[in-house]
């Protein structure tokens, strides 16, 4: 979500609870070598259901996904976040997330926004007909129907999302400290290199 504080658009009113990462991206797609292209396989089992929100043209390309409790539980596969990014999702709103998923989501520029169940229920209802706006600056979710829900977010994560900073870029800003650590620890290169083939 590089450098943008407002995400505005339709939201998938998904609402399901305990959505595990197998549902987000089935194991059969883990042998890929790139982050791109996973979106077409996202929610494959849900998409097999007639009338599912993901195949409804109304929501095509929606940047927001609204889900139930414990979103992203199960396997730690980062492919789940990659699949959502590839679908164009930039915010997931749910009453709770698995820790690993919210970390993976954040690392890939997706905001995992926690709101109480009542707020999520209301958004699920409104999202069927209206767009939603997620503002990371004011930490609020609003709708054209005058709804306004505020959320909290780890300040570091929020800043990264707002500024479009990636964690690696931030760490590289500590280059001097890393170089100083290496210089003070001359023994890092302990081992004798094994002569290695490259075939």
């Amino acid at each position, binding site marked *: 979500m590089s450098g943008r504080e407002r995400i505005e658009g339709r939201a998938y009113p998904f609402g399901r609870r305990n959505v595990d990462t197998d549902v987000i991206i089935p194991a059969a797609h*883990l*042998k*890929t*070598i*790139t*982050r791109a292209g996973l979106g077409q396989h996202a929610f494959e089992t849900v998409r097999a259901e007639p009338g599912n929100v993901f195949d409804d043209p109304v929501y095509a390309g929606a940047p927001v996904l609204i889900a139930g409790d414990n979103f992203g539980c199960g396997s*730690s596969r*980062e492919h789940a976040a*990659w699949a959502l990014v590839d679908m164009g999702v930039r915010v997931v709103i749910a009453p709770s997330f698995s820790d*690993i998923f919210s*970390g*993976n989501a954040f*690392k*890939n520029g997706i905001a995992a926004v926690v709101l109480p169940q009542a707020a999520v229920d209301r958004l699920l209802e409104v999202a069927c007909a209206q767009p939603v706006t997620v503002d990371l600056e004011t930490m609020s979710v609003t709708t054209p129907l005058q709804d306004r829900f505020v959320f909290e977010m780890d300040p*570091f994560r929020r800043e990264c999302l707002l500024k479009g900073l*990636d*964690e*690696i*870029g931030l*760490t*590289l800003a*500590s280059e001097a*400290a*890393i170089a100083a*650590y*290496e210089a003070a*620890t001359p*023994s*890092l*290169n*302990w*081992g*004798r*290199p*094994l002569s*290695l*083939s*490259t*075939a």
Partner: protein
Amino acid sequence: MSATSRTLYEKIWDAHVVEKRDDGTCLIYIDRHLVHEVTSPQAFEGLRAAGRKVRRPDLTLAVPDHNLPTTARVGADGQRLPIADPASAGQLAALERNVAEFGVPYIGATDAHQGIVHVVGPELGFTLPGTTLVCGDSHTAAHGALGSLAFGIGTSEVEHVLATQTLLLKPSKTMEVRVDGALGFGVTPKDLILAIIGKIGAAGGTGYVIEYSGVAFREMSIEGRLTVANMSIEAGARSGLFAPDEKTFAYLQGRPMAPAGEDWERLVAWWKTLPTDDGAVFDASVTLDAGTIAPNVTWGTSPEDVVPITGAVPDPESFDDPAKREAARKSLAYMGLAPGTAMRDVPVEHIFIGSCTNSRIEDLRAAADVVRGRRVSGGVRQALIVPGSGLVKRQAEAEGLDRIFTEAGFEWREPGCSMCLAMNPDKVPAGERCASTSNRNFVGRQGPGARTHLMSPAMAAAAAVSGRLADVRDLVPA
């Protein structure tokens, strides 16, 4: 934690802090990074997209293991044989491209040193005490056997380490698992770690780094410690540590990538200061008596579903916790087992001796001791021995173990992860049962619908020659 008394974990952590943030998060220096073909392609892709380099290729080592077929890799004409599965071939080809482009030291698929990352690291001396070591793989905990703070990371973290040689981390809580007493006849480190997981549960170590202490661990070989540390993650702990001692030093000295000469002397002196100080405090403590442990097997689909081989399949109704009751019902339905069935009456169709938990030379020797002069039972459809590395394979062949196995009816394969997770062609067919020395008995882990019973190499060998789960103590006289 008092200012002067620190645990082994705290000492390694403190020695690696590059920067400390206000919220307690630390930028931690990473001394060693192991890379394999499954969790690295997107990390290299990210580096490429951002125009970044690998900061310290000299502290990085790549080796393919998860996807490689365990059948012959080189044809009669000396040419490398192609990998049939296009996705597996693609992951291997991507690794080969990436290590060449980024200048990462690489052990190729047909190199004599190739093997499972967690077998290769220790045996080459790449893994060292007092280091921080990471790999995009949850069983990285294994390296803690040598006193290395080692843990699995996700692909974004792999990219972070490649680019910066650091990770942003919060300190973990510490748990001491103390086991005193001696393991009985026929009881191995695998049985002990299964007993520990059975006791504290698959989530019992979540948020903790475990330190294994007590006589049973001090007396244990390095290979046994590797088995124990490896499965720390199955108890929920990201890392498991053993204090480096004389056994550790003896194991490492002279290994190809281990330090030598003055470096060695200086490092040993430092390593001797690492063990937990008297008076240091752990956040949690668990104790077990080694003498009470029997050879163990699992009955369900979590590594915590442990029962002595002399026991029976539990009745789900016997669990107090309703969630546990429900999980046990589901497990037994998946495993095709009825409550009350004696474990020794459970027939098996597949045997897998391998994986980063139990594929080192001691494991193969223990299995060969049971197999010698016996045959794989007629009911067993496939019995695989997959050495953990090329070096293990050659050592076993030099000792004649391969012949003991093949004469008994086992298949002797090339090194890799193999049937541990069935990413390569080695799979257990749906509904069939496998006695396995690996670390996960999850639903579908060894293939869709496959039923896994975890156990030690000696116990898997006993199952192979019996055609059912068996007590190794009945086969080998004390």
